[in-house]
């Protein structure tokens, strides 16, 4: 596996001088499911805006597919890295759903037929094809979110980056969203999400990046989420399942479960004896 996204020693400071990123380095492998975790104000959203060249590095570098993002290639990068914003109202601006999903492909200068194919397959992938001629302000929050994802899908990016994808979604909406993301992952896409939902990250991600105060605390597998010192330093907590089994696992010297499935298995094991 090759690193599809690589960031080295990235610094970013806002207009007013507030530093947001202080030397971030990370690398994301192809076809990974990455969760970037951190408390509010850790710099997650700012970091994501560097992934497709909305913010260019003030210092350090961002490489997509081995190519460093600069003013000259930021447009090509944007069709490789699709960014789904937290609030779909920020992203879905067109008069109809169809027009909005076609916005990206049109900017890519594609042929009409190709655009139509992309729009219809993107809308079908998120189950919103029936709503194609609706106005966005007549849709529910979850529906708008799906349209926002379709708008990014239609550009067929290799990497899809989502900022707090599950925020404000009801449980059914969250399930639908993660079903869509898993589908996209099976098709060979790399998915990156920024969140502070630890349970979801433990359950879903294959790789974890912990961010705090504009710096990377750690990068690795979901085992990071049950390391006391790291979790405390990142202002997070253990996944709920891990909290439940924490004492038992320590007493019996068993590995601490992190996902609901692992928890169930452990419960079976414990009750059978």
């Amino acid at each position, binding site marked *: 596996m090759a690193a599809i996204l690589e960031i080295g020693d990235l610094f970013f400071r806002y207009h007013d001088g507030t530093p947001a990123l202080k030397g971030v380095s990370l690398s994301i492998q192809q076809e990974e499911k990455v969760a970037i975790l951190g408390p509010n104000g850790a710099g997650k959203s700012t970091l994501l805006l560097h992934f497709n060249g909305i913010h260019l590095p003030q210092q350090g570098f961002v490489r997509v597919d081995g190519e460093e993002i600069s003013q000259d290639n930021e447009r090509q990068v944007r069709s490789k890295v699709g960014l789904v*914003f937290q*609030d779909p109202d920020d992203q879905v601006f067109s008069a109809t759903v169809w027009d909005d999903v076609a916005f990206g492909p049109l900017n890519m200068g594609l042929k009409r037929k190709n655009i139509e194919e992309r729009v219809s397959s993107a809308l079908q992938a998120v189950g919103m094809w029936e709503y194609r001629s609706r106005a966005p302000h007549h849709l529910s929050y979850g529906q708008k979110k799906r349209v926002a994802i379709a708008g*990014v899908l239609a550009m067929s990016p290799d990497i899809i980056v989502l900022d707090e994808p599950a925020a404000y979604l009801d449980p059914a909406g969250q399930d639908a969203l993660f079903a869509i993301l898993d589908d996209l992952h099976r098709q060979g896409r790399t998915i990156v999400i920024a969140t502070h939902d630890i349970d979801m990250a433990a359950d879903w991600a294959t790789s974890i990046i912990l961010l705090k105060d504009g710096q990377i605390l750690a990068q690795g597998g979901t085992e990071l989420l049950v390391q006391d010192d790291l979790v405390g330093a990142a202002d997070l907590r253990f996944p709920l399942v891990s909290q439940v089994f924490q004492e038992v696992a320590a007493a019996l010297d068993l590995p601490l479960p992190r996902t609901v499935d692992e928890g169930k298995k452990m419960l079976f094991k414990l009750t059978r004896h």
Partner: protein
Amino acid sequence: MPQEHIHLDEFAHLKSAFHRFDPRVKLVSCLVFLVIVVSLKSTEGLIFALSVICLFILGAHLPAVRILKRLGLIIPVVFAIGIFLPFMQPGIPLFSINLGFFTLHFTDQGVQVSILFFLRVFCAALLIILVTYTTPFHILLRSLSDLKIPKIFTHLLQFAFRYFFVLSDEAQRMQRARRSRNFKPAKNFWSRQTLSTFGGLLGILFIRSYERGERVYFAMMSRGFKGEIRVLDDLHIQGKDIALGTAIVLLGIVSLVFDQGGFGWLQF
């Protein structure tokens, strides 16, 4: 939950010849008609034009009650102006009001001017209702930019329309949060507390819109925005559009001929 949104395109998806009419030809021909109508100087010409517009509205299957309701919005304004017009024209006084310092004459000529004014306003308003009710808003904007209206205006309108609802929901939520903490506007709007509360609300709303504007722009850039919102062009002008457009312009010219007394031999 957000309250029922204003449905701008409520009647825009009905089926009629006027709905199928190419919006660009519709806009141009109705604009020509509008310019002619507001320049008419006789009751005969205006009544002819008004009946033409009413026929079109009937033909477009628009519900009369809703049209009247929409007209009701402008009636108070029009009436307020119209009521003073008869006093402002010199002529034969029908009656006079003595105000001590000066006398107001309600003149016959003034009444004539007032009637013309009413008819013109109604013609113009009905014509605009006809066009906007039979064309979906985004198609209307697209036609405007096809007609070389600068993009800055059509984009502004498009974003204003899209984010009006988002903003009004936001304002409503803030209002509700205020009420749930027992804020009650004082009877006198100029009371210090009320004024500063509403000032704060407006300020926060402004800052939030500014920040949202920035995020919307970032999201657009993320999808390759290059300063131009491009759309797939699927509007085509056909022969019957030209025919209907020409007919509307011709009807305008006919009302102009009426206006000039060109049909005097018909003996009204």
